[in-house]
Structures are given as structure tokens and as C-alpha cells.
């Protein structure tokens, strides 16, 4: 390893070093502290170093890769500030990429998570998240509004729920059903559970939902459909559809879990079951179109999770365990996207933007607009949270609308009918 070569990046200015060199025999270097005005110059150091590293990996510049990984390793921490966290989690992904151990890591993590997640812990995390941030509740309120409207006048409802929010969407929906002016319809709720959602968790959720429905006086049935390996394999026959029922399909953070090549077929399948409405909620980031261009994908991934982590930091208390769990969840997604190829690592994590989903959905569906009531409900919801959140209707190629945080669209919600 050569001593400092001109093209090797310097560490952020809060760590300027006068002599920086390293070789196989642990050459010591003198590190001095530099300008008193630390903070300004050193914000966003993580993004800068990470991007340089991604670029170095894509051109296989070995010495630069090592140098940057070393720097990131020294500066990163999963328990520190924003930059330190981003550095840590993205460093993990880059390291796995460089050592081609991404798939193995993803598999290991998946089984660890499966083992350690309990109903209590999952519930605690998601409820806390919903308390401090509208990230998930936005999609719930929008979807519930669209479904209620589409199912107006129906007596036998069947909702196929393919989401990742542990049925926290449905209590409010049951309440709305119970308080409708006309006779309370019956509701069958079919939850499609993928590999990551443990059996014990779903059972517990089922019990609670049944209990709540009884309380609300809504005739209710709950069933879980387990998909063996990939969500894309879900078939109509698996869903237990019956005659004389109005079907709604609720896809919250679901479509992205379908393998990229299988997405159009999956939507086709949904279309073929003739639902009254399909609600789609997805996070607004494109990790799909660039999947063969590592650097581009990396940048978009970094952008999105940078925003997400920032949002988490501003929403939760500093020592929040729930926030830590969510951050770790992100790290698994990041690892899956950056260090695994298409077929590895369980559920797909390659999200697409609203406009991209629209292009796919337009094949068999046409967009449904949200009623004024539904939109008012969402606006009322956002008022309950800290400032920074807002609603923006989609424009151009996309329909539906966005949840924005500090004016940046982060979550997209839409409704469709065949």
C-alpha cells in the first residue's frame, strides 16, 4: 500500500491529519484537530465519502476502496449522529458488496430477525412509529378512504391485505364500518403473509382483530395466507375468494416486495380477480430502473435513506429503541438492494416511484380519484403530527398523491379499479 497518493480522499475537516499514511505494518499517523468552525464544513461528510466509495467500487480502484472503507470504518457508528449512522449502515452494505458476502448476510439476518421478533416487540415499534410520524398512517387513511367509498352499499366485504404494517390499518376501518348509516356489512380479512412475518405474530394479530371486530359489532372473519417463497407466486386460488363478495386489494409496501420481473404478472393476477378497488401505497424512491448501474442505484438509495433517517431522528426521542429497530430494518433493506443480486435475500426491496407504478398499473387498471372526504381525513391526520408534513397531488404521469416531508415526496398513495 503506498503512502498518501494524490488521488486518495482526505478525511473530513474535523479530523484533518498532517501526515496520513498507512501500510501493512500499521504506520502511525499524527492526527490534529483543525478549524474551530467544525460543524459547517463537516456536515454531510458521510454522503460524500460513501459516494466516492461506491464510485471506486464500480471502477474497481482497489487502493481507493480500501482507503475509503478504512475512513468510513473509523468514523461510523450506529449510535451516533446522522452522518455516523448513514456511514455505518451503508458501510456494511459496501463491505458485503466488496467481499461478495451480501446474500449470505441477508439470509443470516433474515433468520435472526425471524427468531427474535415477537408480537410484542413488533407491535411496540410500529405503534410508536405511528404515534410520532405519519409515514405509515398516511397510506392507511388514504387507502381506507378509497376502500370505503368503493365499497359503498356492499354487504359482504372481502379485503385482501398485502401490507407490512401488521394490520394496524384495520381498527379504524372497522370503526368506520360500524358507524356507517346503513346496515353494518360483514368483513372478511385475508392477510397475505410473507416469509418475514412470523406465525406467532400473525396468530396474535388475528386474535386481536377478531376481538376488536366483536367489540365494534362487525361480523368478521380473519385468515392468513402464507406465501411459500416469493410474493410473486401468489395465485388467485390461494386467496379463498367467494361468490357474492366485494373484493378490495390493499397493497401497502407490497408491490415492491414482488420480484421486479414478476411485477406486471402480479398486477395482471390482481386484475383478474375483479376487485372493486386496489389501493397502492409505496415509498417514493427508485431502486429498480438503475439496478444494473451500481453507482446510480447507490446514490438514490443514499438519498432516500438519508431522508428517512433524518425523519426518524426528528420524530423520535434520542434514546429510542423503537427508532433503533427501524434503523436496523432499513439496514437490511439497504443490504438487500446494494449487496444482493435479484434472486438473493428473501423479499425484494427494490422500490419504484409512483410514476413507475402508474405505468405498470395503467396496463389493466384505471386510476380512481380520492373523494374530498378522504383527502380531508388525510389532512386532519397530518395536523396531528409535528410540522414538516404535507400533502401533494401527483402530477403528470402519476395519479394519486404524495406525503411530503420538508417538501420532499416520500410516500405515494393511489387507488385503482380494473
Amino acid at each position, binding site marked *: 500500500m503506498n503512502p498518501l497518493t494524490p488521488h486518495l480522499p482526505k478525511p473530513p475537516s474535523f479530523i484533518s491529519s498532517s501526515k496520513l499514511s498507512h501500510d501493512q505494518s500499521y504506520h502511525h*499517523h499524527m*492526527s490534529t484537530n483543525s478549524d474551530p468552525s467544525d460543524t459547517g464544513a463537516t456536515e454531510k461528510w458521510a454522503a460524500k465519502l460513501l459516494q466516492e466509495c461506491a464510485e471506486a467500487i464500480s471502477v474497481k480502484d482497489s487502493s481507493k476502496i480500501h482507503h475509503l472503507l478504512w475512513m468510513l470504518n473509523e468514523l461510523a457508528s450506529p449510535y451516533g449522529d446522522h452522518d455516523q449512522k448513514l456511514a455505518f449502515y451503508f*458501510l456494511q452494505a459496501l463491505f458485503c458488496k466488496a467481499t461478495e458476502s451480501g446474500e449470505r448476510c441477508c439470509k443470516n439476518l433474515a433468520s435472526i430477525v425471524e427468531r427474535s421478533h415477537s408480537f410484542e416487540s413488533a407491535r411496540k415499534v410500529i405503534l410508536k412509529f405511528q404515534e410520532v410520524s405519519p409515514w405509515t398512517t398516511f397510506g392507511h387513511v388514504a387507502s381506507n378512504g378509497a376502500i370505503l367509498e368503493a365499497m359503498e352499499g356492499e354487504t359482504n366485504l372481502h379485503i385482501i391485505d398485502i401490507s407490512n404494517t401488521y394490520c394496524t390499518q384495520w381498527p379504524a376501518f372497522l370503526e368506520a364500518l360500524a358507524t356507517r348509516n346503513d346496515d353494518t356489512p360483514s368483513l372478511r380479512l385475508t392477510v397475505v403473509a410473507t416469509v418475514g412475518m412470523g406465525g406467532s405474530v400473525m396468530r396474535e394479530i388475528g386474535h386481536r382483530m377478531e376481538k376488536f371486530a366483536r367489540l365494534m359489532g362487525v361480523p368478521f372473519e380473519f385468515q392468513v395466507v402464507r406465501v411459500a417463497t416469493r410474493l410473486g407466486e401468489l395465485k388467485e386460488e390461494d386467496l379463498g375468494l367467494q361468490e357474492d363478495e366485494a373484493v378490495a386489494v390493499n397493497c401497502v409496501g407490497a408491490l415492491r416486495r414482488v420480484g421486479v420481473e414478476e411485477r406486471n404478472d402480479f398486477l395482471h393476477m390482481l386484475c383478474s380477480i375483479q376487485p372493486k378497488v386496489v389501493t397502492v401505497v409505496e415509498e417514493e424512491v427508485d431502486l429498480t430502473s438503475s439496478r444494473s448501474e451500481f453507482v446510480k442505484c447507490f446514490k438514490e438509495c443514499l438519498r432516500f435513506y438519508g431522508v428517512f433517517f433524518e425523519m426518524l431522528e426528528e420524530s423520535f426521542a434520542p434514546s429510542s429503541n423503537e427508532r433503533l429497530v427501524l434503523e436496523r430494518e432499513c439496514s437490511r433493506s439497504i443490504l438487500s438492494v446494494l449487496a444482493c443480486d435479484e434472486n438473493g435475500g428473501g423479499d425484494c426491496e427494490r422500490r419504484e416511484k409512483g410514476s413507475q407504478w402508474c405505468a405498470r398499473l395503467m396496463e389493466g387498471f384505471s386510476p380512481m380519484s380520492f373523494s374530498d372526504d378522504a383527502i380531508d381525513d388525510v389532512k386532519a391526520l397530518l395536523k396531528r403530527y409535528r410540522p414538516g408534513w404535507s400533502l401533494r397531488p401527483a402530477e403528470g404521469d402519476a395519479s394519486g398523491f404524495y406525503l411530503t416531508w420538508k417538501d420532499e415526496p416520500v410516500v405515494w398513495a393511489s387507488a385503482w379499479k380494473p
Partner: protein
Amino acid sequence: MMKGDFEVVNGALNLVQPSETWDYTPAGFPVPHHISNLPSTTARPVLDGHCTNTNLSDFMEQVASPFSEASPSTNGFPMDTSLPTDNITTSPDEYRSRKAPRRVHESAACGGESRSSKSLAERDEHGLNMITILLECAVAISTENLPQANRMLLELTQMASPYSPSCAERVVAYFTKAMTSRVMNSWLGFCSPLVPHRSILSAFQAYNNISPFIKFAHFTANQAILEALHQKERVHIIDLDIMQGLQWPALFHILATRADGPPHVRMTGLGTSMAMLEETGRQLSNFARRLGMSFEFHPIAERAGDVDPSMVPSQRGEAVAVHWLQHTLYDATGPDRNTMRLLELLAPRVITLVEQEMAHTGSFLDRFVESLHYYSAIFDSLGMSLPFDNPSRHRVEHGLLSREINNILAIGGPARSGEEKFVSWRMELACRGFVQMPMSGNSMAQAQLILNMFPPSLGYTIFQGDGTLRLGWKDTRLYTASAWTARPTR
């Protein structure tokens, strides 16, 4: 490791003679107006000399035992911030034998809140599980089995939180992070550190505020320095790692108010950055000026082991005091042999040394085991004083202790440079002909006054023996203060 008759003394004995008049240092510590010999303490010997565990299973049992004995948490402890009166009763609980359950002092009492949703048995199992994996991971690293280590680290990162009410879990979280970093460095093949000095300093200050260890180091050393510089007109104090010079205002205050007038004080401060040293120098000069004490400051932005002795000239008639507080935040001294040579050349009237009671050298596994024990005690002590979500506590754990743990587990240990380091400075000083000056009763008094700021029931303990003073937490010795001279005392 020196064996001897160690005596455990808690902040309980009344050494303060009511008839003495007291002065107050800027930091608020009462200080005797004149130096006199207070009666030495007669405490009951309780422990044997050993404190380090070389038997891993003993250690495992000791570390794991809190999990099997943890009881539901009590509410958070009231922190008594008022200065207590002189008469403090000893709580007999402090002197249990080492193998006694540490129930009170572990996750149960650590922080107010428990995870009430998990049953006790679940929590214990979780804790035991974590520790087991941590130890297995350390073994994997020690045998260079990096893929195996990585697999276990993945698991540990999902399991342990640094915000947990359980101190053990916090310790596991940070050890996991350190080992993750270590694995990466092993793979990369180099391990020089990048050191963010400002954030370390801020964490160091927080540590000084919430914990007695730094004050213990400062005040016992100051006392020894005072005694050695008794009646000297010109003094030269050399601080081998001055940082922000937190130690010195208290000493200056006493020197300035000496019965026979203040001495002329020359101070040489070593550190990592000239800018920071100059800032420190300015602060200290201002303070000295306000006290009416003649003062010069010389900054040297080098490590002691890199310094050319000609940069630290002695002046005639000067009494030299050298001070060093050992830590593993970064390598402050460099090649130890050179530092020793410098000390020999300086031939100081007093060298005050405060060492961490933990191996900085040796195999990875040795360092791992000792540091796990060491930092468990420190984390425990913090957990007793502050709730789990206290930001200062987090700043200290994350910004300071975690950094030390990182460095200790790094390739080659905290030096991170492959440079040769002494196993024990006390041993080396003794070998090189320096003569130990036993820490006096006054130093002991200083230590106890500091402990009195932290309610005795919390668990800080002072050990006195072999001429040294050791501050620890419960049974674990953490910092040892000793004083040496280049020539026999008159």
C-alpha cells in the same frame, strides 16, 4: 500486578478534623489550609489482592450471574447532589465477598424502567444469550476466524441496544460495535485511527461531570504535587496530555494562596493540536493572572515519546512535576521507551501517574476479557447515577467509553501503531530507579471528599495499598493513582 495487603476504604471514615479551617477550590472542593498529616486509615481488609480474572469461566459466571439474579426494577434512584456531612455511616453491603450476587447493581437497579412486557426469565435468557455470543465472537476473532465472527456480530447488532435500561446490554452493544470495526480493520489490513478530538473533549467533560473518576485523578495527583512542591519558589509542571487543562485551576488556586506566597509556575502542556493547546494555555494564563500568580505556558504539539528532550528544557532551581492520566482514547504518549527516557532526563521531583487498571497489551482475548470486566463496572456505575435516556450518559458512553473499547480491541491494542508499550508504568518506573512516594493521608482525604459528592450507597470504593490509591466501582479497581520521584525524598 502488585500484590499486597489491600484495604478497602469507602467514603465513610471521618478523616476531617473539625478544627481545621477549610478553603474552597473553584471546583468547590474543601481543601485543608495547610498540609498536615492526617492519621492513616484503619480499614478492615476485606478482599484479597486479586482483581483480575484470568479464569474465563469464573468471569463468565460473574458477568452472567446478574442475569440469573436480576429482579424487577425499583424506581430510579434519587441522586443526592448535596454535599453530605462529615459523618457518613458505612453500609455493610459494600463489603460483600466477590462471589456474592450483584443483584442490586445490575440491570435491575440500572435505570428506572424495565421491559415489563418481557418476563423476567425471557430477559435473563436474552442477556445470557447475548453474552454467550459475544464471548464466542471474541474467540473467533482471536483465532482470526473472521467470517464466523462476522456472522455472530450480525446477530449481536440486532440484539443489543445502547439505550437499554440494562447496563449489560449497553456494554454488549458497544463491544459489538468495537468488534465490527475490528473485523473490518483486520480485513483491510491496517488500523490507524482517525481521532475527532473536539467531540472527545466534550465527552470527557461530560464524564468529569457525571462521574468521580477524573476528579479522583486530578485531585489526588494535585495533592501529591502540592506536597512535593512544598516551599518551592519556581516550579515547572509538565502535563503529558493536557487536553483542556481541567486539572490545573484547582492546583493554581492552592498555590496562589500559599502562606509563603505563590511560586512562579511554568507549565508545559503536551497535546495533539497546537490550536487546542494554545486555547488551553490562554485559559490557564487568564486564570493564573486573576489569581495574581506568575505563570508561563509552553505548548508542545507532540507526543511525549516523540518529543526531543531539548524542547522541554529545565531551568535552574526549578522543581519539576510531571503528570499523566492514562486513557485509551488515543495514543497520547507514543513510544513508551522514549517517554521514559524523557522522564529520566527531566529527573522530576514528582511524577504523578494515574493508570487504568486494565491490560492495554497482550493477546486480543486477554484484552477483551479484562476490558469487558472493566467497562461493565464503569457502565454499571453510570447506570446507578443516571437514567437510561440521560443524554450526558449517552455522550459519555458513546463518545468516550465506546471509543476506548474500540481502541483496546483494535489490532495491536490501543496504541494502534505497533509501537511498543509498557505493560505497567508503575513497574517500569520502579525498574528505572524512580522511587515511589506513597500517597499521603491528604491525598486519601481528597479522594474521599470527591466520593462524598456521590452518595456512598452508590458503590464507588477507594482502595489503599502499596502506596497507591485506587478508585473503583464495587469490587472492580478502575483507576490507580501513584506518585514517584527521581531521587529519594529528603
